[in-house]
């Protein structure tokens, strides 16, 4: 019986060793995947917490039906001017911006221009950054001289 016991114990031991190694490798990889995703999530939260924009003013240029929005980056994060979304009276509209640099640094004011044919009426503007930071402004726009 001694030999049988030795062989069976050896089989169990080798199996446990192989399964344990395999399990550890897979668990470790899984843990790394989740840890990386958590890092990304914390980074997203950090960016959101450190981002802020404010619509400083709305100026309507009636000569070419353009509404200029002076928006300031109040946060600590560099924003992407191309990834902004502007909603004028509930609808997303295309825009251009000056200065024409893609990067939008903290404490920098950019002028976002949108086409608006509705004249000097009360407007509601919503601006959203690429990470979901929002700014609103409602009211009559100033008229450019």
């Amino acid at each position: 019986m001694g030999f049988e016991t030795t062989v069976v114990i050896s089989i169990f031991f080798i199996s446990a060793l192989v399964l344990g190694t395999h399990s550890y490798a897979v668990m470790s990889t899984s843990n790394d995947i989740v840890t990386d995703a958590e890092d990304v999530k914390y980074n997203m939260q950090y960016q959101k917490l450190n981002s802020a924009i404010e619509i400083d003013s709305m100026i309507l240029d009636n000569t070419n039906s353009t509404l200029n929005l002076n928006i300031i980056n109040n946060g600590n994060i560099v924003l992407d001017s191309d990834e902004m979304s502007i909603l004028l009276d509930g609808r997303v509209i295309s825009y251009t911006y000056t200065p024409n640099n893609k990067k939008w640094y903290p404490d920098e004011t950019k002028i976002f221009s949108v086409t608006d044919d509705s004249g000097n009426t009360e407007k509601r503007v919503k601006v959203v950054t690429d990470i979901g930071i929002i700014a609103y402004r409602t009211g009559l726009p100033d008229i450019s001289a």
Partner: protein
Amino acid sequence: MSFKKKLHICTFADDRRAETAITHMIFFITAILIAMTVVAIMTSNVQSLTSSSASSSKVLSEQLKTDITIISDPELIPYEATTKEYTFYAKNTGRTELDTEYMDILIDGLYVYPDDLDISLFDQDVLWRPGYLLMINVTVPEELSDGDHRLLIAAENGKSDSMDFRI
């Protein structure tokens, strides 16, 4: 009396010396078979466990990295009376690419069927990439009543965003 000599063919079983060896061999083979069966069952269970763990971590990772934000103005939801369509906008504010085919939309808790949905990407892309804007046109049988309503958008991995809006 005559003695008849019995003819006897000698077999392996008759060899009393092999009895113990055969018994040991049977025990040995049985023990090995049982051990192998136990190992096979254990391997199968452990592999099932590890593969579940791997796929679960991938799903969890996708969920952690996914973020969608409904960016529609809650006080001004565009409505096209001729086509009876409400337009909503959502933005991919996460770090994953999403498939718009598997998006689910609920208005006031009621599921909007794909026939009543028109989902399009502003960038004319196939996948809803980070930072991209999604336009969702929902056709309704009749205009929503005045008052507060709720919109919920769920992505393929279960991450969702909801928004209360006023008509």
